[in-house]
């Protein structure tokens, strides 16, 4: 066991890793195992209380000193590659391939690793919703409109988030824009099943990762975090529904 790692520095590292993992979309069990791995290597005991937007960690060293610290997470944005990177980092530490300083540098690097380009994401989201529209029985034209609606909506959402508005507002506006465009084929009678477009174009906003993580946390017994995620996801769904209801009222479609 290395005794040269100070409890202070270790707690800060553990907090950084925990909050970054939560923000990247890891379920609490994963955060727990990753941190346990780090703590075991350097001979600390570790207790965690994870919620959706913060982590509370108590670290105990070999001579019985404890340190408790709390940190809020950075803004949430799902980034599964970071899950891999942190997992590899903690394994390297556990196998003695990384020193404490190197682990700190690695953690900092991973926390700043870039995600996909916004334009690429917009195109991907468009294709995804277009294919879902086809799966739901829409015709090719319906798929094209779903593509347009989802791509533009995604770009709008990214920009609203960049302008530092409340994230929930971004969901309302994005869902409004998307369903406004997707409602066009109902309005003008384009394609064979225009209602499929309206139903599938907003699916990219559905918070799939928090929803699934909420259930996984529930199964593994992290009740606080499970509730938080479920509430967050349910509220996003409500925001999507509000945005849709607004645009449907504006378009005057009453048979959705």
């Amino acid at each position, binding site marked *: 066991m290395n005794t040269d790692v100070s409890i202070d520095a270790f707690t800060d590292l553990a907090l950084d890793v925990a909050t970054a993992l939560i923000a990247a979309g890891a379920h609490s069990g994963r955060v727990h195992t990753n941190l346990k791995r780090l703590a075991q290597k350097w001979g600390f005991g570790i207790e965690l209380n994870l919620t959706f937007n913060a982590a509370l960690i108590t670290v105990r060293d070999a001579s019985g000193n404890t340190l408790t610290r709390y940190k809020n997470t950075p803004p949430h944005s799902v980034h599964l*590659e970071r899950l891999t990177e942190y997992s590899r980092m903690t394994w390297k530490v556990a196998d003695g391939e990384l020193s404490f300083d190197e682990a700190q540098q690695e953690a900092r690097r991973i926390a700043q690793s870039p995600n996909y380009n916004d334009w690429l994401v917009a195109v991907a989201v468009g294709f995804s919703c277009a294919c879902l529209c086809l799966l739901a029985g829409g015709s090719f034209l319906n798929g094209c409109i779903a593509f347009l609606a989802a791509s533009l909506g995604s770009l709008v959402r990214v920009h609203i988030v960049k302008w530092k508005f409340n994230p929930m507002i971004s969901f309302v506006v994005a869902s409004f824009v998307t369903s406004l465009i997707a409602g066009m084929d109902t309005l003008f009678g384009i394609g064979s099943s225009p209602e499929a477009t309206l139903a599938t174009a907003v699916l990219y906003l559905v918070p799939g990762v928090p929803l699934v993580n909420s259930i996984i946390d529930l199964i593994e017994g992290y009740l606080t975090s499970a509730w938080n995620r479920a509430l967050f996801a349910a509220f996003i769904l409500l925001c999507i529904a509000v945005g849709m209801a607004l645009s449907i009222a504006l378009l005057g479609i009453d048979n959705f």
Partner: protein
Amino acid sequence: MEIGFLFHILLDFSLAFVVACCWGILFGTPARILWIAGLLGGWAHAFRFVLLQFDVGLISATLIASLSVGVIGIFCSHKVYHPSVVFTMPACITMIPGLYAYRTMLGSIKLTDMSASQLSAELIPEIMHNMMLTLSLLFTLAIGISIAALLFRSKSVPETTRKNKRRRL
């Protein structure tokens, strides 16, 4: 009829492949393993489609499909040296019950209109039905994704066998 059925399965597979790949991009799955997410997503959706054709219920079909994704994902994760959740998450999210989830929400918004809720007596059963369907489908997806944690007891891999990097996931 046989050919038509096969064509439908293939179509379902390819559409779901694209969907899973694109979800992978949205969720920041590494580009190198996007194809695995796509294949798993395509497999899950096509498998569910076949099960649905054979009159297996929607919930049981989704459960079987997501369990198969979870089990295949465990093997894949050891092949490509990534945690399985990185690609099983986008794959399973092709089957996310988004449609039922916001039908629940839209139904609830309709409830605020008294005349509409009196006009249609089925509104509340419909909302409850959609809500229960959403929750059940979510549970089946989550069970599929976390199958590794449920199947295997938590244990630490001994240092000697860990030298093989593929065991470190």
